[in-house]
């Protein structure tokens, strides 16, 4: 983020903290997100993702720290800000007996100036029947109503809490298209998820939150450098595990007979040189997913 000017920054948090006690809440979140970026906020259940998002939306108030969104203060200018934000809550609760069209119509009315054709187009793309009673909709269809109301006013900033929860693969693809279109129109996206594979597909940068603290932030490429290869090799020569352990990036080395298993973070070249010297006859490598990497990271930082 070095070199980004104020005008380029869509979101910045400075020491944002909400302490519920007993280690619950979020603590000292500091982060900047550039305009036009899709930022993925990743963490396991209960990590603090929703708390952070509700702080940004001024639905809960921080104990300390502040956040600026689109150049405005998230608390002082919250009403003005919300006019420019598309928000998807974790669960879109509604009144009994109302139809989906009532929900969308009321929220469009509260915003004002929403293009009816845009609503119709989004309903069509998300394959959503707005005439049905909201409480009768499946979880996935309720999620579509949530997405529709978040995208309908072409917001400058999208804040989405677990946006693909309950969506089938086809609608997930449509959702990704909507995200790309929004970003193409200049919007910034901040989305949370606990499924790393999902954010890998759409996000430019990813932040990992665990126990309410931001553990790691990086671009997809930077995070990919963290990726770990799991190696299995059969060799006929001699292989010294002590030498192996000294190789940069190699861990968990285990030699059983003529079979080696180990993990490699970063370049595999030094390991390949050693294996070549040991007359390797078979080599199998697979890359661990970001999810496995993050689980590994969380495990090592916790332990």
């Amino acid at each position: 983020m070095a070199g980004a000017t104020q005008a380029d920054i869509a979101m910045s948090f400075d020491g944002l903290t909400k302490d519920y006690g007993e280690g619950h809440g979020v603590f000292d979140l500091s982060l900047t997100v550039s305009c036009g970026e899709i930022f993925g906020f990743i963490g396991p259940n209960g990590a603090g993702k929703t708390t952070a998002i509700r702080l940004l939306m001024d639905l809960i108030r921080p104990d300390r720290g502040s956040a600026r969104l689109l150049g405005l203060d998230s608390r002082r200018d919250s009403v003005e800000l919300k006019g420019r934000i598309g928000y998807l809550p974790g669960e879109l609760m509604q009144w009994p007996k109302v139809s989906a069209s009532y929900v969308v119509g009321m929220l469009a009315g509260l915003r004002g100036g929403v293009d009816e054709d845009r609503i119709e187009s989004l309903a069509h793309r998300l394959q959503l029947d707005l005439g049905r009673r909201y409480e009768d909709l499946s979880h996935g269809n309720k999620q579509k109503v949530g997405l529709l109301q978040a995208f309908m006013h072409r917001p400058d900033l999208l804040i989405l809490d677990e946006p693909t929860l309950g969506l089938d693969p086809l609608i997930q693809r449509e959702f990704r298209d909507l995200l790309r279109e929004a970003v193409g129109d200049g919007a910034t996206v901040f989305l949370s998820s606990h499924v790393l594979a999902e954010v890998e597909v759409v996000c430019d940068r990813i932040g990992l939150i665990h126990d309410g603290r931001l553990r790691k932030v990086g671009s997809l490429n930077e995070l990919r450098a963290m990726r770990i290869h799991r190696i299995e090799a059969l060799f006929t020569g001699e292989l010294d595990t002590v030498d192996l352990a000294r190789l940069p990036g190699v861990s968990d080395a285990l030699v059983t007979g003529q079979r080696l298993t180990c993990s490699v973070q970063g370049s595999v070249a030094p390991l390949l040189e050693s294996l070549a010297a040991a007359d390797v006859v078979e080599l199998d490598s697979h890359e661990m997913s970001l999810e496995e990497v993050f689980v590994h990271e969380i495990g090592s930082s916790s332990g």
Partner: protein
Amino acid sequence: MKSAVAQANRLIADTVLMRWRGAVIWVLGGSAAMYFMALALRSELARFEGGREGLAASVQAGAEAMRLLRWPAERLDTLGGYLTYHNLTLFAYFLSLYAVVQASRAIRGAETSQALEPVLATGRTRAGVLLARATGFALVLLAISIGLGLGIAVAMAAGGEPNLAGSLLTSLAMGVCAFVAYALGAAISQLIGTARSAAGVGAFIVTVLYLLTNVWDRIGPVGVIRFVSPFYYFGQSRALVPDHGFGVLAVAVSLGMTVALLAVAAWAFERRDVGAPLWVRRARYVAPTTRVQRPALRALWSATVVRERTSLLAWCAAVAVWMGLMAWLEPNVIDVWNKFDFTRNLTVIDPRFSPSDHYLSFAAEILAPIVAALVVTRAAGWVADLQQGRVEIVLSAPLSWAGLVRQRLAALLAEAAVVVTGGITGLVIGALVVGADLYGLGLVRLAAMVYLLAAGLGALAALLVAWLRTAVAVTALTVCLGASYLFVLLVQLFGWPDWLTRVSIFGAVGHPYLQGPPVEGLVFLSALAVVGTTLAAVVAQRSAKVR
């Protein structure tokens, strides 16, 4: 087996815990009403021209005229007879309404909130859940019966006719009557689409049964309906009325009806889908909705009125019918009202007006507590919105907390306007039917003052909800308003100094049908509306969380 019993006990305990506050309110409110009624009647019995017999003869004519509302009326020359006729019959009706609504919510409401599915997933049978809920509510009714029975006993003692056994037995019969209504609600709710609709249909059926039972010997063959009415069997247990006793057989029949209805409910529950009634209409093709933005949805207040239109129309119709009935009864009851000290104390504002004017003023000013009840129900809705996460989505639109408070109050005022208009229309129609004269200016003053009361109470409710954020806010408001209304009645009833009414929020309304509104009342209600709204907005805005 042991585990099944433990699970059932937990559900029973859960039901009791959920309803104990309601039980306390029933006991305290009912006992207070009985006590003050007994004191008033003791005074009347002592001083009435012609003595006890004269009083009974005077009341009998009015009782016959108002038979649809309560019956039977026997031994009105005694406190026990009068309380049974005048208070306990109506009390049984209202307790039954409460029971039928609770039964609708017990299962169907839990389905709506998806609280039932995890319970069923633990391995409990549906019939077992229903039975546990019914048992829990039976315990609540038993507590109400015992508490209220003791309250009635105190009232009887204060009225000079101590009768502990009769009080407890009558109250127990009332609880049994309400339990039949509960079982009826449980059965009906299996057939209706939603808990709210089931509560409405159940309340309607209970009301029809109550009214028809009161006039069963005047409606020909239809009168046979009394045999399926819990109120008929309650009427057989009049242990407070001299020469009458406790109807053991009637209570046994009532309990038999309860068991049968609960069995029907359990049978239907076992056969239907969770979340759907027993018989579901097949889906019909409906053209997809594409245009969603309507003028009525452009503001939160109008969207709220649109959403609550069915409930609002029900309020409006009920208030219109009630006030119309009050006006329609004027020729029949005016003599009796004018003969009783306590009714005169309640109604006479200015001796220059006729008894008829005073009665119509009393009937018209019932609008004030009705609008207060409307405010309480809407405040309960605000708390539910907060706790169930609906406020969160509304506030994600460009709307501040202060804006939300203003929009809610605007919706409340729109709804109050509809209810006030409905009530006054009903009153006018009822008066026209019997040829009673109404003061046009008085009705305008009444509408204006009740509207101002709605604004003041709405602001107070908004402040309490913003501050307390839970059902405690609604309970506090209900208790405050109930006590406040009762206090004004007591001041009038016992001829206490007028200035005491200033303590009550209803005292601020004055008697606008007959007199100009009190200046201090106008100032107080206006200030309450303005200051309350401002404070509610400030407190809400400063709250650290949405829920």
